[in-house]
């Protein structure tokens, strides 16, 4: 029982990352009709926003410490971040410690800017082109983006820890009457889950309750009609793309403490997030979120030792297996609409 509760928790947490990425993908697909293979790259760039900010915060000047030696036996050079000089070491440390949450503020404008540039500079010209062309050009873009990041940041993962306050884990088991340590879950992952819930909620609220959102929803249902109404769709498309980029970027920022970011994390998520979107049903926002959580939970269950013993290798293929079964039984995914992406 406790094992099952734990894996459900786990699945929800894993699923929140999938759902966030799939949400952004679906926003772009649903409104713009573009299949964006560079979406994983946006997630990755978001993560590197956090890396960049923590590097900016630790920009240092060097002082030579005569009392210590470096590996060659020369006097040790010690880097002192400027924030120490400005705010004192204690406050400076707190600021550096909170680099990841601070990066949210940094990432939003950066990601929106990147999204807008991408849409204006490239994607815009592909609205009328076949889906295959869209896939291919964004795939090329994804390769370019990740190689650029690799050029500047190297291939090795870069640790970006969560603030000290969020280290360690919360014991759910005690709350539910189990023994200690039976159901524990890291604070930061709980934060991630809550964060994902807020973002998803915010996106839905935005679409539901604002005029802008109404137009966008109408556009998702029937693009041509909205265009005929004389509403400036182009501008809204650009904004939507910026928004989707920001959602992907934020998902990336908050993900950095969970796994040290590296240049290919986008590609790692890309295939998976497409599976999520397709399982959810192309173009359906609730479908994407639902499928994200569903696949997260199934993946978690498949990784239980008892399950693997029973079906060796099931943890390797569960996502794909589920995708195949769902696509064969529900041709348009869980909540897909008819006639989307079938040609």
């Amino acid at each position: 029982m406790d094992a099952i509760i734990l894996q459900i928790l786990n699945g929800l947490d894993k699923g929140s990352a999938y759902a966030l990425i799939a949400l952004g993908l679906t926003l772009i697909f649903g409104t713009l009709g573009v299949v964006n293979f560079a979406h994983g790259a946006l997630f990755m760039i978001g993560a590197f926003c956090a890396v960049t900010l923590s590097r900016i915060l630790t920009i240092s000047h060097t002082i030579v410490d005569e009392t210590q030696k470096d590996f060659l036996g020369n006097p040790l050079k010690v880097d002192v971040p400027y924030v120490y000089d400005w705010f004192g070491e204690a406050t400076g440390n707190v600021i550096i410690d909170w680099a990841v949450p601070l990066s949210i503020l940094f990432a939003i404008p950066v990601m929106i800017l990147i999204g807008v540039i991408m849409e204006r500079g490239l994607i815009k010209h592909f609205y009328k082109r076949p889906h295959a062309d869209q896939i291919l050009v964004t795939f090329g873009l994804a390769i370019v983006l990740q190689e650029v990041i690799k050029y500047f940041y190297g291939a090795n993962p870069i640790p970006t820890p969560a603030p000290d306050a969020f280290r360690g884990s919360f014991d759910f088991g005690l709350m539910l009457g189990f023994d200690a340590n039976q159901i524990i879950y890291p604070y930061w992952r709980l934060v991630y889950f809550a964060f994902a819930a807020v973002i998803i909620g915010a996106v839905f609220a935005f679409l539901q309750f604002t005029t802008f959102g109404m137009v966008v929803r109408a556009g998702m249902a029937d693009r041509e009609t909205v265009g005929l109404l004389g509403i400036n769709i182009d501008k809204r498309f650009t904004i939507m793309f910026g928004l989707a980029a920001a959602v992907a970027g934020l998902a990336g920022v908050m993900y950095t403490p969970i796994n040290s970011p590296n240049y290919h994390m986008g590609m790692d998520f890309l295939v998976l997030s497409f599976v999520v979107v397709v399982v959810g049903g192309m173009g359906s926002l609730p479908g994407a979120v639902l499928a994200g959580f569903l696949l997260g939970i199934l993946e978690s269950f498949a990784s239980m030792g008892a399950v693997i013993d029973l079906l060796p290798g099931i943890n390797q293929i569960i996502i794909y297996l589920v995708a195949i079964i769902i696509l064969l039984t529900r041709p348009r995914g869980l909540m897909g609409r008819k006639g989307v992406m079938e040609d």
Partner: protein
Amino acid sequence: MLGLSKKDLNLLFIVFVLTMCAPFILNPFPEGSAMAQFNAGYPDLMQRFVIFGIFAIGFNILFGLTGYLSFGHAAFLGVGSYSAVWMFKLLSMNVIPAIVLSVMVAGLFSVLIGYISLRRSGIYFSILTLAFAQMSFALAYSVLTPVTGGETGLQLALNDPRILDGAASSAGNIPVPGLFGLEMRDSTFLRLGDWVFTFNVGYYFSAVIMLLSFYLAIRIFRSPFGMMLRAIKSNQQRMNYTGLNPKPYTLAAFVISGMYAGLAGGLMAAMDPLAGAERMFWTASGEVVLMTILGGVGTLIGPVLGAGLIKYMENIISKINSEILHGWFAFMPDGIEDFMVAIVYPFIGKGWHLTLGIVFMLVVIFLPGGLVEGGQRIARMFRRKKTTQDNTPGTTEPAE
């Protein structure tokens, strides 16, 4: 001749000349010159050109004709390789049974996957094929290690049974794949002044098979079957209401292209008897898509060109290191030399992926028809200069 129109015959002849003279064409620079870096006329790369050419030709029969974008085609290549290596391990080092088996196994495998995946179309089909291929990769890399060799790949061992040939060669080493005593790795060299040209048995064997595959592809393109496939891409609705059943057509195309992939996989194993699971990873499937698009979807020669370009970049551009760069720009003053190296360096050597991504984007954006379209545009430019007035508007020819 050969049941081909004059135009197709010309194309086949050009490809024939190109493949047969590849050792010359790919080695334009004399040994020892700074440009020798760009020579590609060594057996391994030449073999790769034609083998991936076969793979891309086959992929194009599915994607180019029917428009079904399979994102899992590498699985068939991998399965073909595994079958061939198993044949080497169990039966004989002769490449013929190995290749026959790899084509058959890949064919069976594609019947299974095709039958299921083709129940859906569009991106749903792509995701289904992707899912099958990823499953194959994941299992081959892990739980199927006894069958596939897992991480280290399936390779020959001294104690394999090899019923027909015996386990080890006379020298006590693992025997090498051959064709009735002709070893695939044998080469002959021709020296002309500073140039050295390599003629490799394996290459010519693969090249002949590639020519046969290419010829078969032309026949398929020009056949009623090929036209039906193009009709499927164009309008499935009309296809249905013309009394034609698209399903067996697409399945047949899928299986044919799966068998081409298996053939390529079997040949790869015949040239180099090791099969690694990475061959089946989704990026490998993506690579053949890139090849086809780069060259020109739905054209006959395009996929071969695309395969050549990508393999050239992978094997030649990636080997240029900073020292070689400094060598190139050595004639410049030091400051400018370092500057030039700094500019070029991100795009070569370990940066070859970046170059690939950029080239690919440029092609998709500006040349949706791939290199073939580029060639046609250039040809048209010349033609326009020659003949002042060319009044044949709208005469579009079937894909070539």
